[in-house]
């Protein structure tokens, strides 16, 4: 069966399956539950098909409409896109299985969750597959709008407030990105990333474009000074939505920033290209420490997990200074591992928090009241996710941090190494704080609501995924190398196929 379909077909399916499923769920809300889960399974199948195609035939370029860049829009898939697509498919499937259980109590929310989430998925897949700066802008718009609408789904005053702020931040970020696209198009006459990579030159145009695009995407990624919108939005959304926002949406803008940096701007040279990675690294280090300390101070579980996301975003940016100096590929692979592990682990933790919330009716950490005995599967999921966040072996987070440390040690960047270790210790602090309260009985014993098994198992399986990622190196390592995303500009490889 897979032989009948080639890479281009799989890529097409990755965008059109969620899009059509979103339309179907909007048209026939009653069938949305099984339509959504069916779409999630199909997307996972298509992702695996694409991954297999990439591993056997190398990177993929598809000319939509047959026009080809610069006239038309090209799709592009290499190891970097495939890794993130795979993570999206796994987390997406987990959340899709979880959602019907969670929303059973809120049919009105469920009705809108499916079309919004499937459109969000369309945007994520489309973004990872696009090689066209303007098309990427359109994907960012779909992404931002659906994410903001999902945040507002809970309908509470804090939720609406957070969603509105998130929407404004997201629009501002998109506008800044679009400004950069306009500058680049006027400067170099194309919006295709590969062609731009060949044509771009150091100068005022490239510098300004880099600055505005980076600023816009950092705002969307919530790196430290721009993180202010994240905790309220991720903390007040319904649990499956929090999982999607923290695990997936943040990664998309980070991926875009990384892609632009690798393919367009890192080779420019000059003062800015040397200073920007250092600045991003410093902000990342500050985010790791500040976010972790804030997480330790939280009293509500979902806010704790949200601040943990602020910290984990910081790790992703440590790759810029560590890879920048000697084009060190290991640092990028480390960052990729951390992004994937964080996606799986954080989704598991937010889903677990949703279970606890459903069980007890609140998410106050101090009142968890023997949750370990009463929801053992959920607490196991939380702890396994926490192990990956801390970076303990054998999890995916461990591999990422190990590679990051290795890269820091070989370059003698002791400061960054200390931040990586300290962040792990602080993470252990906030994870065990939750676990500790989950073992402790409160003075007044609390009754709990039943939590469906599908909700417990989807969280647990995602957490297992984060752990198993630590064993995936023999398989993931070659995939990350497809198309050499961290080495040559993609234009040179793109001609090969």
């Amino acid at each position, binding site marked *: 069966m897979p032989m009948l379909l080639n890479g281009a077909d799989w890529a097409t399916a990755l965008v059109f399956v969620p899009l059509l499923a979103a339309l179907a769920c909007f048209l026939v809300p009653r069938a949305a539950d099984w339509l959504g889960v069916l779409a999630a399974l199909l997307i996972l199948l298509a992702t695996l098909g694409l991954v297999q195609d990439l591993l056997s035939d190398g990177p993929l370029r598809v000319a939509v409409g047959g026009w080809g860049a610069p006239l038309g829009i090209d799709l592009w898939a290499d190891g970097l896109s495939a890794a993130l697509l795979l993570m999206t498919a796994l987390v997406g499937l987990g959340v899709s299985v979880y959602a019907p259980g969670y929303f059973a109590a809120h049919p009105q929310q469920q009705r809108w969750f499916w079309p919004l989430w499937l459109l969000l998925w*369309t945007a994520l897949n489309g973004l990872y597959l696009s090689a066209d700066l303007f*098309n990427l802008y359109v994907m960012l718009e779909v992404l931002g709008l659906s994410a903001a609408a999902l945040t507002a789904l809970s309908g509470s005053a804090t939720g609406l407030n957070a969603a509105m702020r998130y929407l404004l931040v997201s629009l501002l970020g998109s506008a800044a990105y679009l400004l950069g696209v306009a500058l680049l198009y006027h400067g170099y006459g194309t919006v295709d990333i590969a062609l731009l990579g060949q044509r771009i030159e150091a100068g005022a145009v490239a510098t300004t474009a880099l600055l505005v695009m980076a600023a816009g995407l950092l705002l969307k990624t919530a790196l430290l000074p721009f993180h202010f919108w994240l905790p309220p939005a991720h903390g007040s959304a319904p649990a499956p939505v929090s999982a999607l926002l923290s695990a997936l949406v943040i990664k998309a803008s980070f991926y875009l920033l990384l892609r632009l940096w690798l393919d367009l701007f890192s080779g420019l040279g000059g003062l800015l290209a040397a200073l920007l990675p250092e600045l991003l690294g410093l902000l990342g280090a500050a985010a790791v420490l500040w976010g972790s300390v804030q997480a330790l101070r939280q009293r509500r579980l979902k806010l704790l997990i949200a601040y943990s996301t602020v910290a984990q975003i910081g790790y992703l940016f440590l790759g810029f200074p560590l890879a920048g100096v000697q084009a060190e590929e290991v640092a990028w692979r480390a960052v990729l591992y951390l992004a994937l592990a964080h996606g799986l682990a954080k989704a598991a933790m937010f889903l677990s928090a949703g279970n606890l919330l459903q069980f007890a009716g609140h998410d106050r950490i101090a009142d968890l009241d023997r949750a370990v005995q009463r929801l053992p599967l959920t607490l196991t999921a939380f702890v396994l996710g926490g192990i990956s966040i801390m970076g303990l072996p054998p999890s995916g987070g461990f591999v990422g941090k190990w590679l990051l440390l290795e890269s820091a040690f070989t370059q003698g960047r002791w400061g960054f190494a200390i931040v990586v270790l300290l962040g792990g210790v602080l993470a252990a602090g906030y994870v065990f704080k939750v676990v500790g309260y989950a073992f402790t009985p409160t003075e007044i014993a609390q009754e709990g609501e039943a939590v469906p098994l599908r909700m417990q198992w989807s969280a647990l399986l995602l957490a297992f995924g984060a752990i198993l990622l630590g064993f995936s190196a023999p398989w993931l390592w070659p995939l990350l190398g497809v198309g050499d995303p961290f080495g040559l500009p993609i234009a040179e490889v793109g001609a090969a196929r």
Partner: protein
Amino acid sequence: MSLLPLAIDLVLALTLLWLAWRALNSPDLFRAVVLFIALGLVLGLVWVRLDAVDIALAEIALGAGVTGALLLAALAKLQPAASQTDELQTAELQTAELQTDQAAVMAPIALRLFIALLLLAFLAGLGFAVWQLWVPAPGLSNLVEARLDESGVAYPVTAVLLNFRGYDTLLELAVLLLALIGVWSLSTAPHLGDEEPEPALAALSRLLAPLMILVAAYLVWVGAYAPGGAFQAGSVLGAAGVLLRLSGWRLSLSATGWPLRLVLVLGVAVFAFIGLAVIGFDQPLLGYPPGWAKPAILAIELAATLSIGAILAALFIGGRP
């Protein structure tokens, strides 16, 4: 003689800046919205001066018309909310807003100066970069011109939107639908215009609505070889819907369920269906078979016009049926 165009440009530019400043600075929201609509109209004239008639049409129809109508509709919803303090949510939201307002007012002068300087520095840098682009790189218009014959239409803008970069347009249609789903997820539609419409409005809408539908059809058709197309036509259709709704016209209850939803998704669905179906005829994704481009584009544009019109009218009404 050459001074006149320059004078016009200068007046337009200064008017634009002045309107923008007034709209931002006005403490009265209604006044700000009206100024914003005026800004859209003047911006449309600026696009005409820049020989971009398509963008001018879109700016006036969407930027001034639709956005203005949406802002006025939002304003109408804000005012009753302001008087109803018993609703907890609104009250909480307002206190939060009030606090931010006060924070903005009380920001120390030094901080505000610092932010102003920062913005000025950014503006200077941006200005410098744009100055470097005095002679922009040759864009893609020559390439579009060269391959226009293969696109199935005779007008370059339509060729880009529906053929060369049809993938973007498909997703932009999805953005519109997404915006509506977002609005519908938040609340039910208010009882708008349930009172008896004014006789003048009712008479006017009876006269205007058929005319607007005719104009929309013309705009779709003309898009094949002149400025026009689904987005402009759709916004005219949407305006007709708004007018009808204001004059008391209702969709029958049986039509507000799946028939309405079907019209709303029609644009994206037809576009996606054709884009995928061509793969069965050995064409790439969204690549029309030779000779079929024109009918395919027309079908997509008609479906898109219906959907855009319905979505815009539904956005104006605001809230699920």
